[in-house]
């Protein structure tokens, strides 16, 4: 989780990732943030995020992202 928070913090230091729960739905993260984020997560956690994973539910909060990462690591 710490690693993820560090990536998010570096990506968008202006966003409160601890508490935000509608990052995509409310347009806080834009498409370019997502492209950058997907690249970093794939590298950092050695996973492959597929287009089907790119739904708001998986990226609306840091917690949801962590759950997705763990799920993909298990596969």
């Amino acid at each position, binding site marked *: 989780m710490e690693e993820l928070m560090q990536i998010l913090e570096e990506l968008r*230091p202006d966003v409160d990732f601890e508490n935000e729960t509608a990052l995509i739905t409310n347009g806080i993260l*834009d498409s370019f943030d*997502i*492209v*950058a984020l*997907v690249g970093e997560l794939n590298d950092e956690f050695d996973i492959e995020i597929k*287009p*089907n994973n*790119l739904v708001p539910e998986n990226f609306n909060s840091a917690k949801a992202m962590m759950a997705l990462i763990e799920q993909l690591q298990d596969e």
Partner: protein
Amino acid sequence: MFSDPESSITFAQFNDYTKAIGTYIAKTVPQGSPVVVMSGRHVMTPACYLGVVRAGCFYGPMDADMPTARLNQILSVIKADYMLVDKAHVEVASSLDFNGTIIVLEDIIDTQPDAQLLAEREASLICTSPLYVIFTSGSTGVPKGVITSHQSLMCYIDAVTKVLNINDTDIMGNQSPLDYIAAIRDIYLPISTGASTFIIPKNEFAVPTLLFETLNREKITALCWSVAGVELPAKLGAFDVMKPEYLQKLCFSGSVMPCKYLKIWQENLPDVLYVNQYGPTEATASCTYYVVKEKVDDDTVLPIGTPYDNYKILLLNDDNQPVKQGETAEICVSGPILALGYYGNADYTEKAFIQNPLNPNYRELIYKTGDLGSIREDGVLEFHGRKDRQIKHMGHRIELGEIEETAKKIEGVLDCCSLYNKPKEHLYLFYTGPATSKEIVLYFRKNLPAFMSPRKLVNLEALPTLPNGKLDMQTLKTYFK
């Protein structure tokens, strides 16, 4: 004619709305005045623009999502006395440094049209009257307002209609913010050809499968997107899930297309017409186009093609002399598509729009784009980057000088240099001083559009210099990763 996820308007309704808005504005605002329009991503925004025009005025569109400081900068350049806003943005409008009158769209939409007044205002317009002022990055730290005339816009729209063969069966999918130059196709092609435009919600671009679902649900046939927008679904693997079934035409511009992504589009949609466009806002969106007939490869570099109708291109070297075929020189453009200049900035205008040095006989202005190009043997133009430090990032044009000027205003930033890592699409800021990277990014997010915020910050003891005292950018580039 225009639709978004929540509503849809017909041509007749568009006509009625623009008459109502036009009548109110004509009764309130002196003819020939600028009117700032700040309205959301919905069908009524184009109606606001054209309502202003029907009143014999011109519009300066602003995106309310931009930071307050940026909006105030735009207001300080355009110095308008009137601002037209939708209800959702009244609060933002009231918080700005604006002493003029705020007109609320919802309050005036039922205005009884005054046919005679509208006819008078229409008659006051000539083809060189300004149509809009669109703002773009300026190296001094203040945005430049590019003024486009009715005639320039129509020349461009007619030319692009011909190349893309846009007609009343086409449904376009709008990607660009409505205040940005790239949206003029999505707004004016329907008006001129009878096509329709669907305004795609911004957050769908973060969810590629949703984006393609929308293209299919709305049966979208034509896209005029930034290169960055075209890259996104290919990068995020959207084609693994589905394809845009109805798409026939895809026109892209704004930066150099990395062909590994275009290849994915071509492989999945081989029958689509792909058009690469090139050109600056100062020449009404685009100057040249190239129809991609070949199958591209990862390392293909697309040429920028040949001029659109009514665009003249010349290549001039540093001595303002023409160059031989194959030699690289500055791309200059002339024709009725040249902007009227930069709003309220005669100095800048005179520097950028000059008499054609090859023409001593009559007045012929050219615009020096600052872009470099060369002509192939077959007469096709190729693009070779910039003469100066302007970059294209996420489909937007940015002066690195503006990034530096902004950073220098931050307490704790002593000196800085901004560079662009193009392959990675990272905007870097190298700086000295005690400021933290968080403080710097927060300041950028507050003062400039999101796409101008540096992605990578590097704090240094001192900026490296060359023996002649100039900044050593090559050493800085070794920090790219």
